[in-house]
């Protein structure tokens, strides 16, 4: 009983020990904040990666993809049966996109960024950049991944199957500025009748469409959904608090030209060998895609799978099959491995790479886990330093309390009892420090965005550069188990640091203590 009473009184009266409490508190608070924020980042990244991908991907090793798409899809359905929830074919390839930055001035409001009501008052020379071009089927894509929720047009989020159609203000903008200006000839709209650049001279290439024969109202323009990082330009010196950091370059309704390569033909047209040839087509931007993953948003343009197939002469072909598996979240690693093995029986690994999304993103997620582990080790060193503080202060307290130790022993306290006083004292310091640290850490974590804004305003620099992740705010994930483990670690360090002084106190000779001046 006296151990509890004395350690409690020491805690209340020895202000020197407050230094140890503050060190433990700061260490634990830092650990809580770092773990919660890194956990938030990891979880958000994981969600994003998961949202952008299906559970299982069957990728052709060749950029030309694989033929007989219907047959392969049927085989997948047969193999997986009820386990298959959704399947979406994709054609992926590299492309060049060409666009012009136009200034749409609304003289009534003075705005220079009003594509719907403004008129074109300026136009930049063509800008060309490389992108990843994905031909997707929006209906099935929305089932295998969370494609739809990243579309900026709310109507498309509700009905992503029409995301490549011109609708609403985009249609109005396009009608006013492109149809009127250039007429419908910019399209290459009839099925199997798009213009293929560089294909001239091939005897069986379909002739270019006759623009006169194509009535505008029947023509469906090629639609493209452009990544937010392509459609906008971020001011390099923009701060996170600026509302106009992203300057629009491409508006929904604008036209862009995409150049990619055709599929390699086994037999070239008219007996020539069919090397990949550049093919171009004009597309109308129908929507913008914003996943908040800068890598995705600044590199990807989605077009309709059918358009992609026609553009690249890949009818009934795809480069990848994206599969959504029913109840995949509950699969054990063994079940996942089994699933991939079943698919591998049908898809020859020479031509196909079959992988789960975890396997594809594994290195990235593992890197985050390693970073988090390393940071934990480094930050625990802070608490270890606090532990040495406790050790030093306890040594001083033991010397200061030498007489008291002698009295206690004279009154019958055992060596282990005296040791218990200082161990309990160390535990109490650790408990108070870790408890306060957890509270401080949670308060900082919960208000991290407000703190970040305050710091940014104070320093004039962006503390959290949103352009890296396109996250609107710093994500957090408060994991109670993680916090419990951090606290236990801090307590263990505090108790371990008090062992030596406690041992010294226990082994002191009572007569020596009573005579100590």
């Amino acid at each position, binding site marked *: 009983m006296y151990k509890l009473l004395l350690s409690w009184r020491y805690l209340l009266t020895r202000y020197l020990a407050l230094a140890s409490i503050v060190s433990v508190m700061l260490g634990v608070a830092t650990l809580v904040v770092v773990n919660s924020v890194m956990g938030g980042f990891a979880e958000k990244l994981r969600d994003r990666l998961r949202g952008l991908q299906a559970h299982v991907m069957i990728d052709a090793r060749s950029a030309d993809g694989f033929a007989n798409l219907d047959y392969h899809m049927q085989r997948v359905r047969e193999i997986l049966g009820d386990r298959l929830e959704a399947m979406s074919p994709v054609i992926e390839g590299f492309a060049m996109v060409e666009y012009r930055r136009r200034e749409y001035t609304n003289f009534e409001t003075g705005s220079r960024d009003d594509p719907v009501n403004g008129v074109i008052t300026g136009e930049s020379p063509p800008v060309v950049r490389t992108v990843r071009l994905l031909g997707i089927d929006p209906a099935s894509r929305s089932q295998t991944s969370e494609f739809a929720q990243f579309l900026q047009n709310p109507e498309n989020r509700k009905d992503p199957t029409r995301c490549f159609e011109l609708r609403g203000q985009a249609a109005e903008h396009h009608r006013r500025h492109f149809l009127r200006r250039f007429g419908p000839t910019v399209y290459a709209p009839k099925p199997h009748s798009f213009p293929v650049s560089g294909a001239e001279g091939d005897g069986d290439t379909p002739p270019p469409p006759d623009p006169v024969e194509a009535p505008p109202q029947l023509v469906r323009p090629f639609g493209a959904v452009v990544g937010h990082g392509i459609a906008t330009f971020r001011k390099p010196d923009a701060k996170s608090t600026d509302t106009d950091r992203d300057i629009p370059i491409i508006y929904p309704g604008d036209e862009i030209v995409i150049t990619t390569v055709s599929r390699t033909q086994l037999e070239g047209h008219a007996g020539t060998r069919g090397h990949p040839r550049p093919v171009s087509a004009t597309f109308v931007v129908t929507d913008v895609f914003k996943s908040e993953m800068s890598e995705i948003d600044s590199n990807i343009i989605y077009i309709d799978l059918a358009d992609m197939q026609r553009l690249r002469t890949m009818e009934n072909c795809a480069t990848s099959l994206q599969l959504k598996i029913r109840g995949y979240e509950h699969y054990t690693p063994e079940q996942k491995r089994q699933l991939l093995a079943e698919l591998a029986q049908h898809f020859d690994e020479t031509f196909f790479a079959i992988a789960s999304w975890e396997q594809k993103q594994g290195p990235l997620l593992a890197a985050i886990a390693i970073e988090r582990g390393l940071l934990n080790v480094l930050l625990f060193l802070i608490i270890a330093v606090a532990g040495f503080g406790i050790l030093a202060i306890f040594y001083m307290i033991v010397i200061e309390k030498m007489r008291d130790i002698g*009295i206690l022993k004279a009154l*019958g306290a055992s060596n282990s009892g005296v040791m218990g006083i200082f161990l309990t004292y160390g535990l109490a310091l650790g408990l108070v420090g870790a408890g306060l640290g957890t509270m401080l850490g949670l308060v900082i974590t919960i208000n991290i965005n407000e703190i970040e804004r305050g710091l940014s305003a104070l320093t004039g620099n962006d503390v959290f550069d949103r352009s890296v992740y396109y996250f609107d705010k710093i994500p957090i994930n408060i994991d109670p188990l993680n916090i419990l483990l951090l606290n236990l670690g801090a307590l263990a360090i505090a108790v371990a640091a008090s062992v030596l002084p406690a041992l010294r106190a226990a082994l002191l000779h009572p007569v020596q203590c*009573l005579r100590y001046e």
Partner: protein
Amino acid sequence: MASTLLLARDLYKSYRRHKIVIPVLRGLDLDVETGEFLCLVGASGSGKTTLLHVLGTLDRPDSGRILLEGRRIDDVALAERDRLRNRVFGFIFQFYHLLPELNVLENVLMPEMIRSSVLSWWWRRREARRRALALLDRVGLGHRLRHRPRELSGGEMQRAAIARALLSQPRLLLADEPTGNLDARTGSEIVRLLRDLNREEGLTIIMVTHNPEIARLADRCVCMTEGRVEAVSASELPALSS
């Protein structure tokens, strides 16, 4: 006829400082009767405090025997020595040695707390508190229960220390110059208190003192010279003090 409570035979104790051996007790013999008030006098460095520590199991003799009611206690295990100090011996020191973080009542309760686990303290606390309050009333500190030692005078602190020493109802009270740090009047009050405890409750007391006036109040005085004792009569005491 009074029985022998404590018996020391042929006690030797020396301290070693930087390879120099300093003999303190040199073949000391001492008998203490039950209910006796014994005064130890002697020049500084004659080994009085060391003898109290050895008798009270705070220290071990190098050789010799100490028997408590016929049972050897000088060679018992550490845990048993702790138990003896907690239940059989009560200590009073010159500098009171109260714990500064605790109030008077808590200081007095300390021997009972040392004896108890958290659970047993929970059961016994009322009884312990009742006894502590009675003792504090007895020593005249019933009105200063919540005061910290630094808020008490020297005499009050020593009274609190006496109450603490008596809480475990010890068989033998070992007082090491309890009046050494007090003025004459307060010192005699403390000694009167000890005298009353001895007479009214039969408490056996061994007290170290340099004051012949105080020593005269004891049943018996022994003088320590070069680590041995010799009985002295009260008339010889003034000479000793000089």
